[in-house]
């Protein structure tokens, strides 16, 4: 198990290294001049040149990359124009927001986590639950209802669902406050009531996929020989379905869930925009619009970290679910 973990973490680190090199090359080696993007007006050539020097853009690319990575690991000195000392993990200085990128991230990352993690729990429970029920009640009205629900979820867009929910629960029934982010530890109730619509709309759309997937997986598993064996042993139905069938059916769901959660943590742009919440996704979009390269670079890296981490978690879950995986 320990070896398995070390191996997976090692390959995860390699992947992140590759992503960082690629994104660094893309953003810092683009023909577009990052400095004039940061300073669209009131910039004379001397000032631009000074900024270039401060940013280290005159250094060889390798030196720039090494400096950037060193900043992430140990922190570095960016010079007085960029806030001076930048502690690890230093992601650079943004001339657009006039703050260290790591401060921006520290502000918006909890927002995205608060949106995605509860939503993921909700959509997994809802999706797998619906899929199970419709598989076990195949052909009944319950099955049709679940299929209809998941078809609806799969065909709708988040901004539509979100807008309808906002209209009904916030502006019409006035049951919920206008969505906003309050840190969980400040006031858990406000935290939840401000985000619940985002959770519900994400869960509605995502659970559709999970309902279909787990229904198909469950139906396939129910025809497996080992399920017949479990029944032939005289096990009760809850035990046959819950322990024997579900555990085997859930494996592919775990894979998809890992990818989805990892991807969503990188930024839920549409959700954040629909509900007017400033998370990682909107920050990334704003940064792209403003040509704020250090922030773009940081959001890309963070998204990559989440995807890679999610994959490690999926691997670990796989090993926990399926004993045959541990051998490889």
């Amino acid at each position, binding site marked *: 198990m320990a070896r398995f973990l070390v191996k997976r973490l090692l390959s995860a680190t390699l992947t992140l290294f590759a992503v960082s090199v690629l994104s660094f090359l893309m953003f810092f080696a683009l023909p577009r001049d990052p400095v004039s993007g940061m300073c669209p007006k009131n910039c004379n050539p001397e000032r631009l040149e000074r900024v270039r020097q401060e940013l280290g853009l005159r250094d060889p690319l390798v030196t720039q990359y090494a400096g950037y990575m060193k900043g992430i690991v140990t922190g570095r000195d960016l010079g007085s124009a960029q806030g001076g000392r930048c502690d690890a993990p230093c992601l650079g200085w943004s001339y657009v927001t006039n703050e260290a990128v790591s401060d921006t991230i520290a502000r918006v990352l909890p927002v995205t986590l608060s949106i995605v993690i509860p939503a993921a729990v909700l959509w997994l429970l809802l999706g797998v639950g619906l899929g199970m029920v419709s598989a076990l009640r195949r052909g009944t009205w319950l099955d049709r209802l679940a299929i209809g629900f998941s078809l609806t979820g799969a065909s709708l867009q988040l901004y539509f669902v979100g807008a309808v929910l906002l209209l009904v629960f916030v502006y019409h029934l006035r049951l919920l406050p206008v969505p906003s982010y309050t840190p969980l530890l400040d006031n858990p109730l406000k935290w939840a009531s401000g985000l619940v619509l985002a959770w519900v709309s994400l869960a509605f759309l995502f659970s559709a996929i999970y309902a279909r997937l787990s229904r198909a997986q469950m139906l396939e598993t129910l025809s497996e020989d080992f399920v017949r064996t479990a029944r032939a042993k005289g*096990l009760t139905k809850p035990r046959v379905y819950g322990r024997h069938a579900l555990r*085997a059916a859930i494996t592919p769901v775990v894979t998809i869930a890992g990818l989805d959660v990892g991807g969503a943590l990188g930024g839920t742009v549409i959700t954040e925009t629909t509900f007017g919440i400033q998370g990682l996704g909107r920050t990334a979009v704003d940064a792209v619009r403003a040509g704020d390269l250090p922030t773009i670079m940081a959001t890309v890296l963070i998204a990559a970290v989440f995807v890679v981490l999610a994959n490690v978690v999926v691997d670990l879950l796989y090993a926990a679910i399926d004993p045959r995986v541990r051998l490889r």
Partner: protein
Amino acid sequence: MGEPAPASDPYLRVDDLRVRFDTADGTVRAVDGVSFAVERGRTLAVVGESGSGKSVTSLAILGLHDPRRTTVTGGISVGGRQLVGLPEEDVRRLRGRDVAMIFQDPLSALHPYYTVGRQIAEAYRVHHPRAGRREARRRAVDMLGRVGIPQPARRYDQYPHEFSGGMRQRAMIAMALVNDPALLIADEPTTALDVTVQAQILDLLADLQAEFRSAIILITHDLGVVGQVADEVLVMYAGRAVEHGSAEQVLRRPRHPYTWGLLSSVPSLHGDADADLVPIPGNPPSLIDLPPGCAFHPRCRYADRTGGRSHAEVPALAPAGEPGHLAACHLPADERARLHAEGVGRTGAAR
């Protein structure tokens, strides 16, 4: 195997069993009026090609069909209890405790994610709710040892993929026997195994039967296996019984052309490998659209000798000469005896 059992009520009695599946293409008559009985300590072999209804029969005895798509009629009496029409919960209590089953492919029949021992202990605990974890474990380890698995305590904690094919089937047998069932249904228990391992598993079943005095239904298409272990043989074709008798009668003096066909399509270890192999022409019929009359007539060499009856009338199981020997064929019994004697002379098929 085993001595003749005392004349008692058979443990399992199946009367005019009919199993129908409703499918989009029509009604499948998977089993169409089959009757047999097995006493404790005796082995009945049910023989036939795939699709002959032998596995469906065994699943019906365990009540494992989907009740929404399947209609089961007739009588299945296990230890004096009528199973057809019994509530699912009552049938469940019998499953694994009074009637246990061994499946063809132990790799797919065991759950890949649970240890072998845990699966056996689970089978024990479900019928012994008061047994603790430790008692169930002890019992499972004990059973693993009894089916000839070395180091059973260590093997308990291993997964099915860490077992060899033969060991897996032994573990499957241990799981089936953990509750001392009075009836064991073995559905092609050796088909997925190497020939040498096959013999070991059959020996093991025979030993365990002598020990537990269980009734065994052995479902197989392998007549070599039948000769080794069966007391009685039921030959099925297209969901119906076509021949029924003692192993000696059915294998030595078969009285149905389909049984002849089965016997002559088994390679002999003694003669020329090819010379005496005569396959049955054609394929088993569709169970949705059975041929009229005798379902075997399109593949039967002798169907024309019955004056058209084979094409029109379903033959009933009728005495075929010796007591207890039944066959369902329109050919006169003496003519069948003569044809078989000639056939043996020509192909050396019967053994």
